[in-house]
């Protein structure tokens, strides 16, 4: 309460609405920083869905069976759909999709760093679906209660589809683990490469997280990075063990007292390196998006020109 005393009346009222778990809607008054913070988070989320199409999409043409191919296509298509829901949610905050894409291209807006790693073998498609979508679910379930209405509703829609993604990824891993030795090696190798980047998906430790405190107060975020990461580790470790995979962390152990797994230190230097643009695929991922967007400009112009002609024609009739 004493905290709220320092706020101007509008902000005070706003904070009490948040405290009362009321949803903020597009037309409601909101502090400029709340708006900007949300735009940052939602657009980062949207870009992640879209850039995430690439590492998985590049295995559609090589999927080992027709059934896997069809499932992967549906999965990647869902991710594009998630991007769409999220851009729409961001647009309710008074920013256009063009501006959002521009920010992605200039590097002003980020996307999940994990998509800067390459998908080298078919097992990577299993690992991504299982781990990356699991991590996304853990995060997104908590965001179903985020304070901004359109964002919360987008999360509800998205979460429904994510569990299918997670299951198909885990099913790929399970099938590999039940297969030949080379398949088990492939699966283990994929886990070795994707495990730590998955833990990094939850962001810096709470103490070091730049945006966390204010975002929690505004209920843009509902649970801390470390809490979410712990939940992910607890479930993923058991899933790994169930199919005979070894989590690549020598410090991993069950802590009876905490009722959670303790795990080793995350290499934050690696995290910083990739976030700041020097991961293995940062340049290709962005260049791919820029290229597709640039190459598509004439199509978007044609659509606009066609619509304009139609409007004129309608006006003449009327």
């Amino acid at each position, binding site marked *: 309460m004493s905290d709220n005393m320092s706020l101007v009346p509008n902000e005070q009222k706003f904070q009490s609405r948040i405290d009362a778990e009321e949803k903020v809607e597009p037309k409601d008054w909101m502090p400029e920083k709340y708006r900007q913070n949300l735009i940052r988070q939602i657009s980062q989320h949207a870009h992640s869905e879209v850039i995430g199409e690439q590492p998985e999409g590049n295995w559609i*043409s090589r999927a080992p069976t027709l059934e896997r191919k069809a499932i992967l296509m549906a999965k990647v298509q869902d991710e594009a759909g998630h991007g769409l829901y999220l851009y729409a949610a961001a647009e309710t905050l008074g920013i256009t999709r063009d501006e959002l894409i521009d920010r992605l291209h200039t590097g002003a807006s980020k996307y999940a760093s994990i998509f800067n790693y390459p998908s080298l073998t078919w097992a990577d498609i299993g690992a991504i679906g299982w781990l990356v979508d699991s991590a996304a679910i853990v995060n997104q379930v908590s965001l179903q209660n985020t304070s901004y209405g359109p964002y919360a509703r987008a999360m509800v829609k998205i979460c429904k589809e994510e569990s299918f993604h997670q299951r198909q990824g885990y099913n790929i891993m399970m099938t590999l683990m039940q*297969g030949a030795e080379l398949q088990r090696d492939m699966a283990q190798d994929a886990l070795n490469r994707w495990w730590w980047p998955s833990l990094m998906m939850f962001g810096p430790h709470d103490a070091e997280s730049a945006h966390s405190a204010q975002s929690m107060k505004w209920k843009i975020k509902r649970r801390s990075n470390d809490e979410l990461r712990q939940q992910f580790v607890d479930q993923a470790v058991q899933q790994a063990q169930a199919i005979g995979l070894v989590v690549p962390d020598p410090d991993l152990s069950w802590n009876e007292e905490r009722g959670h797994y303790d795990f080793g230190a995350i290499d934050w230097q690696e995290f910083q390196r990739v976030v700041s643009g020097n991961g293995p695929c940062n340049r290709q991922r962005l260049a791919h998006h820029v290229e597709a967007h640039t190459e598509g400009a004439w199509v978007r112009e044609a659509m606009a*020109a066609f619509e304009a002609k139609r409007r004129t024609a309608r006006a003449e009739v009327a």
Partner: protein
Amino acid sequence: MKLNDPLTRYVVRLGDDALIMGHRLSEWMSRAPFLEEDIALSNVALDFVGRARLFYQYAAELMGGEVTEDTFAYQRDVRDFTNLLLCELPRGDFAFTLCRQFLYDAFSLPFTQALCHSTDPQLAAIAAKAEKESRYHLRRSSDWMLRLGDGTQESHERCQNALEQLWIYTDEMFECDDLVNDLVVAGVAVNTSSLRSTWLETVTETLRTATLAVPESQGGVTGGRVGIHTDDLGFILAEMQFMQRAYPGLQW
């Protein structure tokens, strides 16, 4: 892989068309001009891959033994594939992909409608599902012809160029060889040569509205049905079959 039974050969043919078309469309994922098109193109791609699976599953059933849908997709070389050349041409730009789609959809709708009346109940059932999809595909690709044809000068030119490039490959859709003719007599297959006038009407009407010219007939390139393809199919297969070739005999 030698296929002797005429019905099996016919069914595999239809599966090949759908698989290769689906493959080309799926190449657009993450590369479309805007996000809604990523989704729409992958929707259509999924329809075609789904259609291929139904045809191949039926063919596998006809062959019996160890053969599965994947045998057809992953265990055959270029000379065994019998898809239309139109389906395998590289995706080109967005105009090329949509013009190809339009020319094919305008064929595919009357084709699947006719196949619904096949005396072979399995083929008729697959066609019933495919016909609904084709109806939507044609609506979609026709809309794009209008937008691109009557959009900007650039989009108009790109479309017109694409049509000129594609036209020579359209003849093959209406070609009836002995295999088809025999199955037509049995009421199983569609006499595609009888679909040409319907097709041309649809195409002419839409292109006219889109301010595009119907290309002059240049004769036709054919060969897909007997496994004489363009250079491009080999590369599709090299990519598509990589896993099954590198790691044969495993479950995935």
